């Protein structure tokens, strides 16, 4: 009985080690997929905004502010989720790594997703050089 318990515990420890190895990259990959889906929705909404207003939003914004603007304009569904928290984007959270900026004439856009907690760009989708995520 003692032996069975010892071996079971050992086996569980080995499995836990496997989970510990896989856990962080798995979570990162899940978040990355959500970020990509969110970026595509925001990009499409920005295009709709541009068709209506003939310019892109005129100033730099963080993700929540941009989403709020696009939702209020009817270009984006308010149910859009924050990929870092899984909650509605507009619910507000410190976990917001989406950045928006435009040029002085608001003729171009640049959506950047930063690596959490850094200023390093992880994804970039814009109207000039990086026009797709593929």
């Amino acid at each position: 009985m003692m032996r069975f318990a010892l071996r079971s515990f050992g086996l569980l420890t080995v499995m836990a080690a496997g989970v510990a190895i896989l856990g962080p990259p798995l979570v990162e990959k899940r978040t990355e997929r959500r970020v990509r889906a969110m970026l595509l929705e925001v990009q499409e909404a920005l295009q709709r905004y541009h068709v209506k207003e003939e310019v892109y939003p005129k100033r730099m914004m963080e993700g929540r502010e941009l989403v709020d603007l696009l939702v209020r304009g009817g270009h984006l569904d308010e149910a859009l989720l924050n990929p870092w928290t899984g909650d509605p984007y507009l619910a507000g959270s410190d976990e917001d790594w989406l950045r928006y900026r435009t040029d002085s004439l608001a003729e171009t856009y640049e959506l950047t997703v930063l690596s959490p907690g850094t200023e390093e760009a992880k994804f970039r989708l814009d109207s000039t050089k990086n026009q797709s995520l593929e």
Partner: protein
Amino acid sequence: MVKALLQLYRLAVLVGIAWLVRGHHERLRVQGDWPVTVAEVRVFLKDAHRLRVDPGPRAGLEILDASGARIGYAVRTMPDSRRITGYSGPSDVLVVFDAEDKGVGVAIRHSYDTPSHVEDVRMDYLFMERWNGRSWDEIATITDLAAAGIYGVSGATRTSDAVAKSIGHRLAVAEGREGAPRRISVGWRDAWLVGFLGLGGLFAFWKAKRFQRWRWLYSVATIAGLGFWLGDLIAQSLLVGWAESRIPWEATPGLVLFVVAAFLVPWATGQPVYCQFVCPHGNLQRWTMKVLPARWKRPLPEDGKWIARWTPPMLLFVVLAVSFLGLDFDLAGIEPFDAYLVKSAGLATLVVALAGVGLSLYYPMVYCKFGCPTGWLLEFVRRRMGKDRFSERDWIGLALLAVAGGLYLVPAEVWLG
């Protein structure tokens, strides 16, 4: 008879796993982030029942009917045509051909372009049907859209032009993929690898004392030459890389022969040539276990051995998950072999290497016995001497194959959300 069947089973498990990894990555290469579905194709070929990835130069999808007969072919323009942009971005276009390679329809699957322009193009049936009836070759050679009778959609000229150009570009790129014929190139590294392999084989099979007394020299040579100089150790990162893409038999024939022999020699003869004679890390541990006197050695208790033996299979499950799910994880870090490339070695591989060597001072060959996933695979296929039966190892092999099958068949969304 049973022994032969067991050996075939073990080889089949390895080949099966490699085949699933390969199939999965071919599917990813062709399908990318937005896999084409049967429903999309059925709009143009109503008998479409299944899509089969074509790993050839066209890198598209063969369309099969319910009986398995090929009734057409489909390609998507992304990511090859991602640089061809319309008003504000590129579009991913599906192009479907019939069995005679004649176009039967195109559809815009997804677009980064202005939605209203994309919609205008989608709704212009005259434009969208311009490719119908044209052959693959004909479309691939179109350089002047107007001369080919393909005119832009009014109000969405740039978007429609981009759609047209991306179709031509995608097909032309596929034509160019035929590439130059592959030629075998044998270099000095190949010669050294075959030399190490040949000598290892001799030490394994030729037991003459006058020859065996030089084994220590060969052992040192593998550590210095094969390890620190060439850095060509068999590792999961190498095996998975080959399974995911292809075996570079023409570029590094020596290494391919080396790896194939490492698996097939023990499979056919029962002699673990690579693990016992050639592997630099194994040989390094053989030397370190001689450093301390025998009385300092600490034998592992039976339960400890039983538990530790699960480490390599656990690491192999990790390897499968990393490969199938495309996780950002460097497989070189779970083994010590990259540590021999001192300048480029990562921290994880250095830690695994040093820990393995350090522990082997007290527990002889501890990494080989309880830590090495590559060694586990080589031992898995090795022919057993005497009686052989379906053992714990074979069940684990079956479990690995089942996991690979599950990861292959179940869509990534299930695992990754």
